[in-house]
């Protein structure tokens, strides 16, 4: 693994960026998500979540069980805004 190794492919976050964030004191997955957007992309952290937790655990000398998951919110899968917005109610004229 190098500095440039991609950890979060949705948001193009590298190993170097994750390590730098940890060095700055962001040592939870929740903070990492807000700082670097990893876990906020289309896959909602399904691909990078475990890797980020592993890096945090390794760099802070804790075990994976001590690295909680970030909060999960809807939508859990990519959804078109138009679908969420729905059809405007038919105007009654």
């Amino acid at each position, binding site marked *: 693994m190098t500095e440039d190794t991609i950890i979060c492919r949705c948001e193009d976050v590298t190993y170097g960026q994750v390590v730098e964030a940890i060095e700055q004191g962001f040592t939870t997955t929740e903070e990492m998500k807000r700082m670097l957007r990893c876990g906020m992309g289309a896959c909602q952290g399904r691909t990078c979540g475990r890797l980020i937790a592993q890096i945090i655990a390794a760099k802070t000398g804790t075990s994976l069980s001590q690295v909680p998951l970030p909060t999960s919110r809807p939508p859990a*899968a990519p959804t078109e805004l138009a679908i969420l917005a729905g059809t405007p109610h038919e105007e009654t004229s």
Partner: protein
Amino acid sequence: MAEIRLTEHPILQFKRGRKISFTFNGKKLDGHEGETVAAALHAAGVTTYRRSPQLHRPRGFFCAIGKCSSCLMTVDGVPNVRICITPLREGMKVCSPKGKGQLPEDDPATIWTWPGQYVDKILETEVAIIGAGPAGLSAAVETTRMGAETVVFDENDGIGGQLIKQTHMFFGSKEQHAKVRGIDIVPLLLEQIDDSRAQIMLEATAIGLYADKTLGVVRRQELFGLRAQKIIMASGASENMLAFEHCDLPGVYGAGAVQTLMNVYGLIPGRRVLMVGAGNIGLIVSYQLLQAGVEVVEVIEAAPYIGGYHVHAAKIRRAGVPIHTCHTITKASGQEKVEGAVVAQVDSHWQPIPNTQRELAVDVICLAVGLSPTAELLFQAGCQSCYIPELGGHVAVHDENLETTVKGIYVAGDASGIEEASTAMLEGRLAGLCAAESLGKKAISERKEEILSQLKELRTGPFGEKARKGKEMMRQEACRYGL
């Protein structure tokens, strides 16, 4: 050189639908009805779909089961479509997005034909089951048999979940479908579901779950709510990623993706494969690759031992595939897609040992490094989670009836902790039975004991040890939460 599309296979027969055309970035390509867009692109030799949003790195699919979102494309003007689970349709326009995708242009054919109608009303049912794989279908067998009105939904366009790619014969006893191939179990399960009580909705994605047991579901461009008295989460698992240099290159595929290509669509993933992971999945998929006529260059495993059944390991060794334990992958090479891999020995701290690197010429790197339960909808609903490595990481705390800390929400199969399809089917039955029973439906006496004893039996013995230990830890967690 063998064609990408398989025509002969020792076990499977591929009945392809009629030929249809579509375009990829304006170029006309052919695919078959019944294929996903990703499968058709793969068959046409397209492995790199787009560039990543910031660093402009090549991207293709990774998991091919709708979980990783690596395959997002613009389809008929709609950005960020997961093409690995989107059925191919005649005349589809598939384009590489720029950046994270653009809002559709002001084209009356796209955005301003608003999708369906917004459903203010919320549908109601007694039981909602998320996932029509082995656990979900088994749950529906029990709930419908006991007379509970049941809705099963799945985001794929067919039922069976991962069973539809399992060409190997199952272990266990007759009740557990021993000596039956996974692919042949799906119709057996479907047969047992009481149609008069069940509704199966396909291409329906659950995007949210709320504590009052209302689900937000998107189905074919339409959003609706589904309020259920009991929820059974049978959402399966997602493939674990491994971090190494250029691990995001197209050609680095999850083992499930390779199985999907080969066993569902009859497409070879590549010509020369490096298998990473010698657990059961790594070994079985290696064997399936050999059956499809693909060369497996070697199998590497970071642990000092082979994790899977030795009968599977022996089969692929006999075919001349070396299995190297204490080895890891350190790099994928190639510009647009995988052209090679660097492997190295690891020390007792899993660190690569200098000067042990070897370069391999491969075009596919298949990752079989474990699965993680797909449980985020449960956590959205407020179900408590705990970390149990033996069950694959973060799992929803559940009692022996598979009920979570939110009353009326159950979890079964890989979503409750990673095991395999036989236990998933039994867990599905258990969750279905308990959910229906708590609705006041009458259970067939001794049925529950029978399921529990079969589960115990499957988890007995050296290969059930991990799950047994994991479920034991789960019992302790459940006690902590007063379950």
